[in-house]
């Protein structure tokens, strides 16, 4: 079933429950988890690289780690962490592969990204909060954070892309994250 047809909390609860069973090496749960999440994780990787073969390999490696490292996932840390944990593991895996091969997507800059991410009609609460807070910070830090997170740029890559000194870029990101943290805590 597509995640669009499920509410975010139901969908994330499903992911949480399946990952809990995968921790016990329950194979049918692993298969269901794959069916439920692989489309999204594959799309996440394809945001960072145009190379579909590389993306498929990174996806396969990510699920291998999910199977083998599921015990490391800590359900005690909070609700909905299962999906965030899987995204993080997949991003790290894909970024390592992309940086090794240099098969980086030529990403659009801010406008289309913001159109996509800052959708006012969004019905997922956490997305709405994040969008509101992203809009509240200055454009440069916002652009740097979003390009880094969604497209997986390193600081050096992004500094070059934005034609900005590395120190300035790091400072934008540091300041932007601090403002974002404060905004989300409010």
């Amino acid at each position, binding site marked *: 079933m597509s995640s669009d047809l499920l509410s975010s909390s139901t969908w994330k609860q499903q992911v949480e429950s399946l990952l809990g069973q995968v921790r016990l090496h329950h194979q049918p749960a692993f298969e269901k988890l794959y069916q439920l999440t692989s489309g999204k994780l594959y799309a996440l990787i394809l945001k960072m690289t145009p190379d579909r073969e590389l993306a498929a390999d990174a996806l396969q490696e990510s699920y*291998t780690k999910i199977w083998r490292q599921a015990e*490391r996932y800590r359900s005690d840390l909070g609700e909905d962490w299962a999906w965030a944990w899987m995204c*993080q593991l997949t991003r790290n895996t894909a970024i390592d592969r992309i940086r090794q091969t240099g098969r980086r997507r030529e990403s659009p800059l801010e406008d289309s990204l913001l159109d996509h991410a800052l959708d006012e009609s969004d019905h*997922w609460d*956490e997305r709405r909060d994040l969008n509101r807070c992203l809009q509240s910070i200055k454009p440069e830090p916002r652009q740097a954070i979003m390009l880094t*997170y*969604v497209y997986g740029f390193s600081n050096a890559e992004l500094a070059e892309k934005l034609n900005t000194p590395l120190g300035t870029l790091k400072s934008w990101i540091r300041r932007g994250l601090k403002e974002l943290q404060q905004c989300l805590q409010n």
Partner: protein
Amino acid sequence: MPAKLNPAQRYKNPAIRSHLASQYVLATLSNRVKRRFETLLKTDPELEREVYQWQNRLHAMNDNLKEQSPPERVWSELTQNLGLSELEVKHESWWQRSWRSLSLWQSATALLAIITLSFALWPIDPQVQPVNYLAVLQSDNNVQEPELVIAAYKGAKPGESHLHLQWNDRVESSSTSNLTLWTVSRDTGEQVSLGPVSTAETTRLLTPNEWQLVKNSAELLLIEGDSPDGPIRFRGPCLQLNPWNQA
């Protein structure tokens, strides 16, 4: 001018911890710092909580992604590489699965049984170290009970940790004369041999390096012969029984 912090102090500073956690989630740490940070994460649950909080703040940016179907080869290679190729379970009752599928209640029941077994086999004595890691091994023969248990005990000093292998008396035990014990790394999947299993039937001391291999293993295997590619006779996930800081 503030005094320069040594590495241990640096990682205790809340501002630095939060900064590193945020950079880890953004994936902007250098490889060297990332490796060090990941090592630290394994032993610092509060740092893990920082990472979780940053993941929670940012990951909604990825929720808008339009799904894309991955190539079919991903799943087929995945099941092959993980040894799950027999997984065709869609039309099969889960309770009919063998032990190795480790479904939820089976695992819980088994764990309880094994802990009970552990206490029975190794009576509680203040002089005896508690079991730190336990692997419940099963063959592919569809038997209803685990065939053997491997327990790992942490010694008081490095080099004093040891393994103990115990067959389940209720099932027919197999000959171990040609079996080798292997750890499978939970990080890389790499198999490392701990030598012939016959030496572990009484007490098998572990070097500090071997202890780390057991500690970081996702599962233990008993393989026929001394090659990692040999037939797997028994396998089972390696469970941590003690809290992280005691293991």
